[in-house]
């Protein structure tokens, strides 16, 4: 009985744990070298609040940004699964930048910046990591010079599937590839043979098509239209002569009759062809 009670209690705790509340990771332990961590999986690496990079005459500006990460930010980028809410950042060189990183998913994400000077940032990296829903903040001082830095999440396939951005100091040094909504992939998928399969109904495609029909002007002369015109021109005098003096009922009966005859011919021809072919095959088979 006691154990049952305990189990029930534990499961109640479990229920509470599974509906995880938003967690602020602001009680981090400092492990030195700009590395801070807590037991909930929050992590900052390469934190630098006061060391001025060589080549900077002090701090040029002090900025704070809030970056969101999660599955829902990929909605506007078809074929992506994860994304940041913002893909591009631009700051003056030597800016002291505080990043508030908010993870709206229930898994780990990272805001990892590469290419920083290694004498200031271990491995040349500034790194925020937090399991969502939660927030973690970190500060760095951007180096001098105009450069484009890669910002991404390094969990397996998160960058590949959309969680990638770039941070430029000054005008930057060009664009990085594969940033959702900014630059195309280097290696692209081949969409030429992709569906949807012909003849199926797709809700979105139909909507798009009807919209297209509303917007687009139909061309005045198409190939089928010309064929129709020619057939009409040739057939009308013949039919005029044929139906001269007939009533509507007679015309209908005549049309039916011709159709019946045509079908009859077709059927006979097909059966003849079939018997011919099958006899040939039979002969070959027996030979």
């Amino acid at each position, binding site marked *: 009985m006691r*154990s049952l009670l*305990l*189990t*029930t209690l*534990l*499961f*109640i705790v*479990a*229920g509470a*744990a*599974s509906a*995880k509340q938003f967690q602020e990771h602001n009680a981090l*332990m400092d*492990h030195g070298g700009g590395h801070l*961590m*807590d*037991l*909930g*999986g929050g*992590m900052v*690496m390469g934190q630098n609040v006061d060391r001025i990079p060589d080549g900077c005459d002090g701090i040029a500006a002090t900025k704070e940004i809030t970056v969101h990460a*999660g*599955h*829902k930010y990929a909605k506007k980028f*078809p*074929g992506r*699964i*994860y994304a940041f809410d913002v893909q591009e950042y631009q700051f003056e060189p030597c800016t002291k930048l505080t990043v508030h990183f908010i993870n709206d*998913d*229930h*898994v*780990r994400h990272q805001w*990892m910046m590469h290419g920083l000077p290694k004498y200031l940032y271990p*491995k*040349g*990296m500034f*790194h925020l*990591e937090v*399991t*969502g829903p939660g927030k973690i903040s970190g500060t760095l001082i951007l180096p001098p010079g105009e450069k484009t830095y890669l910002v991404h999440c*390094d*969990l*397996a*396939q*998160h960058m*590949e*599937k959309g969680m990638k951005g770039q941070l430029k100091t000054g005008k930057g040094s060009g664009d990085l*590839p*594969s940033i959702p909504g900014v630059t195309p*992939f*280097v*290696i*692209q*998928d081949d*969409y030429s043979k*992709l*569906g949807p399969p012909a003849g199926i109904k797709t809700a979105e495609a139909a909507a798009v098509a009807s919209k297209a029909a509303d917007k687009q002007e139909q061309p005045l002369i198409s190939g089928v239209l010309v064929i129709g015109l020619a057939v009409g021109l040739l057939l009308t005098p013949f039919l005029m002569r044929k139906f001269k003096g007939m009533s509507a009922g007679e015309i209908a009966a005549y049309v039916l009759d011709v159709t019946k005859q045509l079908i009859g011919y077709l059927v006979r021809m097909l059966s003849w062809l079939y018997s011919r072919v099958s006899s040939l095959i039979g002969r070959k088979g*027996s*030979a």
Partner: protein
Amino acid sequence: MWRHAFSVLVGGVALLISHSVAAAVDLPPTIKVEPGKAEPVCQSNMPEWRDAQVIEGVQIQESRRCNPDNPTTVAALVKGTNNISMGALMDTYLAADAVIKKNDTDGDGDPDLIIIKLEVAELNGHSPDFQGVVPTFDIAPGIQPGMWVFAPKSRGMATKSFVGLEANPLLRAPSPVIRVEQGDTIWIQLENTHYFPHTIHLHGVDHPFVDSSGEGNDGVPQTSEQLVMPGEMRTYEIKPRQPGTFAYHCHVQTHVHLAMGLVGMFVVEENRPDNWVQTFNVGAGQVRHPSKAVLEKYDSEYDLHYHAIDKELHDIIQKFNDPRIIAKKMNREYDMTDSTEDYYTLNGRSFPYTIRESLIVAEPDKNIKARVFNSSVELLSLHTHGHKATITHYDGIEHNPMAQITRDVYNLSPARRNDLRISTVDDGLHNYGEGIWIFHDHREKGITTDGMNPGGNVSAIVYKSFLNEEGIPKLQGVNVAPYFTKEFFARQLPVWQGADAWNSLGEVDARGYDQPAAFPVDTSIAAKKANRKIPEASGGDNTLRNFFVGLLLGVFAYLLVVNREKVIAMAKSLTSSKKGGQSDA
């Protein structure tokens, strides 16, 4: 003298002729193929990891393999990442909340609430930025199939270091063995870090159909719960009453998700006081901290997880980046009923890498427990050289001890688990003495890597006296260096190159080879024979038929001539009626 000179002349000409004839009829020469650069058989740089040691109060058994598990990781997984020093945690790739252990509710000296976090990682996946795969996990030299695995929650990068693309050691095949204690409350929290939906089904493990909040707990989307979508988390709650060797796997599009690697072993250890079990056995293989109950009967314990890979399925995630295309190719175009397996792995690797990681290290007169799991789609026919082991458990349930079977081939149908007791008593039955005794699948394709042998799931039971200081067997057969080259598995090396002094079974060098005309034989006899044979073979029934056709034609012609007037009249009436019909219309 003349006579002699003449014979010399004739002889010389004859010699010349015979020489030129010999040159023209020779077959192309043998050439030695450069074998390529061989990796060292063992390239581990952590020899101290092999020793028996105590870390954070946790007893770690010695592991005399080339690549032993990191003992600090083992300690963290035994104590829980919440109960070890930050320094120890920093020596691992584990997240701070990877395994939480607390609440000794029954007061027996071990924690009774275990919170296990699992992420989902893609190995050898596609990159839209460069040719190549990331993060890499080689199952054999140069062999990198795309895979998905459950992984203990890690921290930092997916790669081992900042240079190179090799996956961090927690991200590897197979999905890790999960070990829990009977009666503990276990929360398995699936943090879906992948780009597809997944769930966890606890195969054979005692679990209620719904959890405390009424949500599905069986992992089956069609019956119990919604999909765990990318970025979402779900907790599975269990309190297993029965011990045994079980399994867990994703139950979304199970046929392909399981094959992709989202499947692992799940072991429930018998309840004992002060029983801290090793929650994850990353990469399976030796359990460096066996449970109390196992140590009562055995000296060491090994988890052997067998899997197989169909290239055509595993290629899909390397060919495309758009998850919608991958889903279409995998769910609608890939037809598993037409599939064939190409790679066979033991604990995530194929030979020769198995001998770095998956050796069973033996000593005489000991008992070794091996838990064997087959997650491939075909029967596994496991054979041990030098040993006849006893099957003690089927699918986690102990077999009647009086009826237990001792044998040398253990059949495991898909999803089956066999617990084996490998006795090293040299009695001619259980063991034939010390040595390097391989064990492998005896469906012979299982000992190949995409058809190249040796490869596949071959490993070995190696006695310590046959093991060198690097944990590599003291092999006394052929040179194994070629197996550690990519060229071997790329089928570029003749398997028997250099097997003898003059390389008699080496590669043919047919470049510029001018094939001589074939030796003339009298073909007229053969042709005659052939000619004679054709009517003999098929003439019997033909003659008869030809005769009847002729007969019928003759009758027809005769009738035609006799009735020619009638026929002409009929033809005339036919044409006129047609004309008439047309004019009527």
